[in-house]
């Protein structure tokens, strides 16, 4: 019985505090002290952030940071549960596709006042990253943490055997009609069981031993690592404006022609059929020598360079019809939960995470590219020291050929529609023109 009374009191306290904080108010009143909980999902970054936490406590002896790492699969369900249960972490790593909904449901603390008061300079971050985290209501909900772009990982032994030099790999071009030198390279890298290459006579596309290009998935509506670096060179954009677009462009012929060309690679035998990719991971297949080239994001550098017996090269994505490259530019940030009991301490931690003190530490571990310009340069050097040349990723930033990850409302519903539709097209079951019909359904969500 005592427990029930205590429970009722606790529930009441939680309800009251939730009500007070759920206005998304940006109060940083109160002393900055106490214990705060921080969540992230990438295990590879854990040691770096643990060091940041201990450095932070040295500077702010009253604040202790407890870091919890949860796998990506469970991360978002557990986080949402935390919102509902009232025990979400004070600070957590956030993703562009999820934060609009959280902001909408008033679960994120606005950081504008803190940024102004503490004089946080937003120009130290790579171009465009800071703006991504300003919501539709004009309030800021995150401070940039890191960024990623897309490049091509290739098996050096296979390209050498095919007579393709690293210079050639770094200077491929593409167009939706005949695939340019990109398709030629992929075809040449494809080997069937009899040793015939994809562009030689007698090539048996039903008996392929090594595919030129690996396939991860259809990419659903975003195609971050699958096809967006191609569509980005045709002048096509996902939505009418970004961020906060409300009309998608999947009915555009430039998009559909690109998908048609890409899906066609599987018909020609240069790329695995979609049905064969459901299962382990595309990187494991690369590690098993089943594909010569994989287009992937910079967060996978560690994975691709870890396979025993494979020397991995990295080349930038091919140049397109507009003569330039393109890569989707994604940036993670750390956000503060609106229901935190320690807003002052939490904001201080977020500011520290977004400062060069912490980002330099992350850079030195060579796992991701931190958001601050100087820190990401340090990261590139750290990768080099490990023997990996990451200029393929950084060149997109320095050349200014990046475009932002699409940020819209209803992201989950759009995915629910585009996922099966893209699967059907890439597997050859339906024609690319059916995507216009899906586009209508998607746009209907915004009416």
């Amino acid at each position, binding site marked *: 019985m005592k427990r029930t009374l205590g429970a009722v009191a*606790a529930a009441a306290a939680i309800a009251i505090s939730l009500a007070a904080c759920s206005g998304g108010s940006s109060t940083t009143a109160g002393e900055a002290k106490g214990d705060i909980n921080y969540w992230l999902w990438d295990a590879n970054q854990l040691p770096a952030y643990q060091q940041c936490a201990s450095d932070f406590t040295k500077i702010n002896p009253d604040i202790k940071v407890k870091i919890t790492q949860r796998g990506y*699969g469970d991360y978002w369900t557990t986080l949402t549960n935390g919102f509902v249960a009232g025990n979400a972490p004070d600070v957590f790593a956030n993703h562009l596709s999820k934060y609009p909904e959280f902001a909408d449901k008033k679960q994120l603390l606005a950081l504008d006042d803190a940024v102004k008061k503490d004089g946080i300079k937003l120009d130290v971050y790579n171009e465009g990253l800071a703006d991504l985290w300003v919501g539709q209501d004009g309030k800021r909900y995150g401070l940039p943490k890191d960024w990623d772009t897309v490049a091509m990982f290739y098996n050096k032994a296979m390209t050498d055997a095919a007579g393709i030099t690293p210079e050639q790999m770094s200077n491929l071009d593409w167009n939706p009609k005949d695939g340019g030198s990109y398709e030629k390279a992929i075809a040449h890298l494809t080997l069937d069981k009899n040793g015939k290459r994809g562009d030689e006579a007698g090539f048996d596309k039903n008996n392929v031993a090594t595919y030129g290009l690996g396939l991860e998935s259809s990419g659903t509506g975003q195609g971050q690592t699958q096809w967006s670096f191609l569509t980005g060179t045709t002048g096509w954009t996902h939505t009418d404006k970004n961020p906060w677009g409300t009309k998608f462009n999947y009915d555009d012929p430039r998009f559909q022609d690109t998908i048609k060309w890409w899906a066609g690679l599987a018909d020609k035998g240069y790329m695995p059929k979609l049905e064969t990719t459901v299962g*382990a991971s595309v990187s494991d297949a690369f*590690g098993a020598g089943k594909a010569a080239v994989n287009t992937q994001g910079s967060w996978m550098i560690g994975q691709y360079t870890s396979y025993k017996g494979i020397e991995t090269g990295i080349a930038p994505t091919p140049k397109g019809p507009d003569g330039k490259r393109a890569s989707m530019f994604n940036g993670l940030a750390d956000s503060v939960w609106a229901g935190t009991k320690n807003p002052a301490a939490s904001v201080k931690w977020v500011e520290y995470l977004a400062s060069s003190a912490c980002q330099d530490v992350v850079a030195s571990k060579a796992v991701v590219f931190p958001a601050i310009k100087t820190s990401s340069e340090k990261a590139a050097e750290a990768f080099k020291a490990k023997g990996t040349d990451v200029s393929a990723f950084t060149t997109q930033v320095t050349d200014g050929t990046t475009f932002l990850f699409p940020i819209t409302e209803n992201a989950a519903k759009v995915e629910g529609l585009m996922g099966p539709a893209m699967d059907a097209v890439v597997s050859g079951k339906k024609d690319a023109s059916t995507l216009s019909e899906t586009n209508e359904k998607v746009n209907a969500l915004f009416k």
Partner: protein
Amino acid sequence: MTTQTFKVRKALNWRRIGAWIAIVVALVITIFPFLWMLRTALSSNHSLASNSGSLLPADFSWGAFKRVFGMQTTEEAIADGGSGAAIDFWLYLRNSILFSTVTTAAQVFFSALAAYAFARLRWPGREKVFSVFLATMMIPGIFTALPNFLMIKNLGLLNTFAGMTLPFLFMSAFAIFFLRQFFLSMSREVEEAAMLDGAKHLRIFFQIVLPNAAAPIATLALLTFIGQWNEYFWPLLVGNDESIRVLTVGLSVFKSQSPQGAPDWSGLMAATIVAAVPILILFLAFGKKVVNSIGFSGIK
């Protein structure tokens, strides 16, 4: 006469051979995946992809088991392809044991009480109420998960042992169904004799019915324990706190860490083997009795 028996023996041999082939096939299909689990658990993650056809561990290493028992440092774990998160194995094991034992004991006991009421006691509306209990088996788990979660939250029992065990403590429709069938089939003579002697139902239940039903109750308890041991979704929702986390939830640390990353296969397989060992021990200890002596005297 001799020719007849000779014929019969021949026919029997054919059948027996066929039966034994079927058993061997069944055993292979059942056991091979476990051998594969062991093989993967003793491999190194980075070599798994290139050695996919080999039946032996790829690059033999005890690393996975070390990871499971929390004996690797974060750096070592990450170098091995695993997550650096801390796994407090013994704590999770203790929590799983507590959780499974408490819920099994309570659930089986209360279900037995209810089953007795449905099988032996006579009261108005008995069959209707029983159908209602049966009907609960048809409620999709997800349907009740969220309202139950909200209720536990409102009681302030989130992330407590009580909150995690509460929904499982009181009954299981399957257990009631199962035990009722058994009680119905039990011979009434001893009970009636006791009733004539003036024994009340409570006494009859504890002193006659329960002892007689030891075998099915043991079977049910074993099956329930296994089910509770492997419970994942509810403890994930309600029991995330480190101090009460159970093994199945703790295991999720071996699943993929980042969107395109692969799971820590060797760690996951090692963890699964280790998590299954307690159940295996239990099964070896009690299973023989259960598997060999379960006797329904007729299901009505």
